[in-house]
């Protein structure tokens, strides 16, 4: 008698591949283009859809196929096609089919506006095996197009979303929270919860927007104006206070710690992102020239085996970082990282005041910090954290809400 089934369902997060037998590369992000059919002011990457210079520099179909083939050969199971708007690439269908035939699962990030009946048919016939992720900028034309600054984008996006729904192509939605669409949150969440593949869950939002990855000063000033103040962001987080605090207790119990002078405590460099021009970055946001690898003169494997480990071993040298971030226990709450430092300051280890403010606002809300107290000066943080995680929530939280 055989002891186990010959054929078993294979579930990536339960597989040994993500534990003891991890391949050199498990997942790969691919920015097919930085161009986009929308013109969102809050976006960290978008270039005009008809930017010929950008299009000319983008990798060719054959070059992308070479990268996908190498990724599959290294054991990669899943690629994320993102941008910009990846559907702007005229060879999107060809690359998508190539990736699927190489045995890769494909996650597509899109605004849905360029989904045609033909493309929906392709997704139906050759399923991506990952849920498509659609960013929705508003439930009304006014709010949507105030965000995208593109006439007709509202109708185009909803046409695409309806094609996905009609063809029963699994997708989830997420939002970008801006002053234009904030009053539509309840409507958006109610609609999103009814999408079969959302399983009743609320969508994720981006709100504390990243600055431009290519460090565009003029656009960065506009992005800063669109960010909510830390207390305002906290008010949005805490709209459903009980769920928020419950979730954050669990989160804080796992991820709060003092990080020290090591710059990388995330997964950056264990996978990575190939940008539109063939540069392999340790993560999607980090474009500091010292941390990117030119695939024109090498390979994914060389970057993963020889280059990224050196990057991951980098330590902070900025005295301000060492006296603050390196000693701060809000590591889990704070978005400070080398990529954010790069986007804000052009360095890898400069504290980003905005994210520091967001983390401190949350910590005060949870009772982890007193007013005007700096987290890096707190010595009894483990006791405070323990008290927060174990306490009755309502008694401790929320003088600000």
């Amino acid at each position, binding site marked *: 008698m055989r002891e186990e089934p010959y054929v078993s369902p294979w*579930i990536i997060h339960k597989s040994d591949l993500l534990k003891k037998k991890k391949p050199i590369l498990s997942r790969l992000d691919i920015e097919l283009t930085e161009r986009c059919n929308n013109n969102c002011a809050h976006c960290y990457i978008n270039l005009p859809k008809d930017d010929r210079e950008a299009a000319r520099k983008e990798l060719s179909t054959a070059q992308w196929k070479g990268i996908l083939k190498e990724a599959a050969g290294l054991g990669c199971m899943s690629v994320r096609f993102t941008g910009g708007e990846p559907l702007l690439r005229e060879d999107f269908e060809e690359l998508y089919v190539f990736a699927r035939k190489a045995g890769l699962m494909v996650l597509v990030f899109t605004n849905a506006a360029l989904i045609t009946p033909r493309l929906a048919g392709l997704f139906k016939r*050759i399923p991506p095996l990952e849920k498509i992720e659609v960013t929705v900028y508003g439930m009304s034309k006014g709010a949507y197009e105030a965000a995208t600054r593109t006439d007709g984008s509202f109708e185009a996006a909803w046409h695409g979303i309806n094609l996905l729904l009609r063809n029963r192509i699994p997708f989830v939605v997420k939002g970008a929270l801006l002053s234009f669409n904030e009053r539509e949150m309840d409507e958006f969440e109610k609609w999103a919860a009814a999408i079969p593949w959302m399983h009743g869950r609320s969508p994720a939002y981006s709100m504390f927007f990243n600055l431009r990855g290519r460090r565009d000063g003029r656009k960065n000033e506009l992005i800063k104006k669109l960010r909510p103040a830390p207390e305002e962001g906290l008010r949005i987080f805490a709209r459903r206070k009980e769920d928020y605090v419950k979730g954050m207790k669990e989160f804080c119990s796992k991820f709060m710690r003092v990080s020290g002078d090591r710059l990388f405590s995330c997964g950056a460099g264990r996978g990575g992102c190939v940008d539109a021009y063939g540069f392999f970055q340790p993560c999607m946001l980090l474009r500091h020239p010292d941390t990117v690898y030119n695939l024109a003169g090498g390979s994914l494997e060389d970057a993963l085996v020889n280059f990224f480990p050196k990057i991951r071993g980098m330590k902070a040298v900025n005295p301000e970082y060492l006296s603050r971030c390196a000693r701060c226990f809000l590591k889990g709450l704070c978005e400070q990282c080398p990529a954010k430092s790069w986007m804000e300051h052009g360095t890898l280890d400069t504290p980003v005041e905005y994210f520091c403010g967001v983390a401190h606002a949350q910590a005060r809300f949870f009772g982890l910090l007193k007013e005007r107290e700096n987290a890096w000066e707190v010595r009894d943080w483990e006791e405070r954290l323990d008290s927060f995680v174990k306490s009755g929530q309502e008694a401790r939280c929320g003088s600000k809400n």
Partner: protein
Amino acid sequence: MYKPSEDVVARDVQGEFIIIPITSGAGDLEDEIYSLNETGRAIWEKLDGKKTLKDAVRELVSDFEGDGAEIEKDVSGLLGELLKRKMIVKISKS
């Protein structure tokens, strides 16, 4: 004779043998990616569209120095599962 369907792709990732559907309807709708155990993999690799089942069983008996009846039972069991999930196609009798 049987061979892998063109609607699936088989991959060996770190020793794990995975069958990934390319087109919708290969596999079933609930669990779309499958892995084969070691026995399943050994049998799969004999399904090349050229060998008869008898040849495949004979080679497996030789490769594993196993019991013919037991291996035939394994082959028959796996073929049933793979056909149910449209992972292989029959290209002739035998």
